[in-house]
């Protein structure tokens, strides 16, 4: 019998096999996530095709500057997340914690800006439910459909980010207890994959929601 290796579950041959299995399992989950958001993107594509005028006019009510800043913030958080995984590969506990804290701060900044945008929409009577929606336009009902998708898609995206922040807090606790080594950092890598996926969803949401028919 070989000596037990830290972090190696008994049903795996070695650390490489364990890491490979974890990565594959996470990708299988991410495929279900791609198709989950895919349903929302399909609904968006159908209604934008049917009601191009209402979608363009509604999109003009979104703040491009805040949207672009948030895109940069989220890309920055993906960078710090990738660097946290790199610190994991190098087995540096302090580095993992530092970059996870930075990622959380950027994630919370994103959610804060999103919250400001949501409150603007409520004040401008652009929330599509609770009898609040009120717009003076011949395509008002089409715009209401756009804002339904806007809140559903960005809300579901924000929900994923909140889960991601929770997972990172858990990682920080584990890291501070010295659970991760250069050979065992799988959880950091897996949460990293999740966070980057959430970033990719936003990379598509930003142009599709904020930048329709901006010219002219």
């Amino acid at each position, binding site marked *: 019998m070989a000596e037990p290796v830290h972090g190696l579950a008994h049903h795996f041959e070695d650390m490489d096999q364990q890491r490979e299995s974890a990565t594959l399992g996470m990708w299988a989950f991410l495929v279900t996530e791609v*198709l989950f958001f895919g349903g929302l993107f399909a609904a968006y594509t*159908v209604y934008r095709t049917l009601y191009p005028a209402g979608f363009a006019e509604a999109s003009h009510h979104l703040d491009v500057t805040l949207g672009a800043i948030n895109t940069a913030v989220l890309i920055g958080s993906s960078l710090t997340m990738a660097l946290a995984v790199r610190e994991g590969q190098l087995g540096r506990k302090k580095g993992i914690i530092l970059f996870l804290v930075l990622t959380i701060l950027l994630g919370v900044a994103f959610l804060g800006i999103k919250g400001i945008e949501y409150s603007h929409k409520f004040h401008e009577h652009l929330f599509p439910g609770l009898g609040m929606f009120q717009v003076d336009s011949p395509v008002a009902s089409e715009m209401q459909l756009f804002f339904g998708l806007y809140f559903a898609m960005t809300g579901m995206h924000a929900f994923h980010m909140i889960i991601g922040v929770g997972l990172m807090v858990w990682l920080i606790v584990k890291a501070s207890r010295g659970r991760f080594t250069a050979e065992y950092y799988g959880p950091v890598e897996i949460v990293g994959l999740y966070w980057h996926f959430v970033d990719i969803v936003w990379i598509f949401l930003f142009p599709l929601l904020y930048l329709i028919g*901006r010219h002219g």
Partner: protein
Amino acid sequence: MSSNHHIMPLPAYILVFCTLLAGTALTVWVAFIDLGALNTVVAISIAVVKALFVILYFMHVRYASRLTWVFAGAGFLWLAILLAITMADVMSRGWLPFPTSDFLNIR
């Protein structure tokens, strides 16, 4: 067996980050130029390139096993099928008259 454990140098990460920021700036800039129907095509193309950078480098898929490539690719293949068949239905509505039949008594 160190392929799973490829450690990218720090400058490579910074370069990917800058590429993604440049892509964001480009997508905003080009949205304000009138390209007709091409505006949407360009916006989605830039987003796809940005997503590829995130997947290949931040998510390490470039250095992952071929089996991981198959898993990742499968997600986007099925997404393409979902969008293609949904839109095939939506866009072909009204191409043909609604079928009627005296024999089946459908009007």
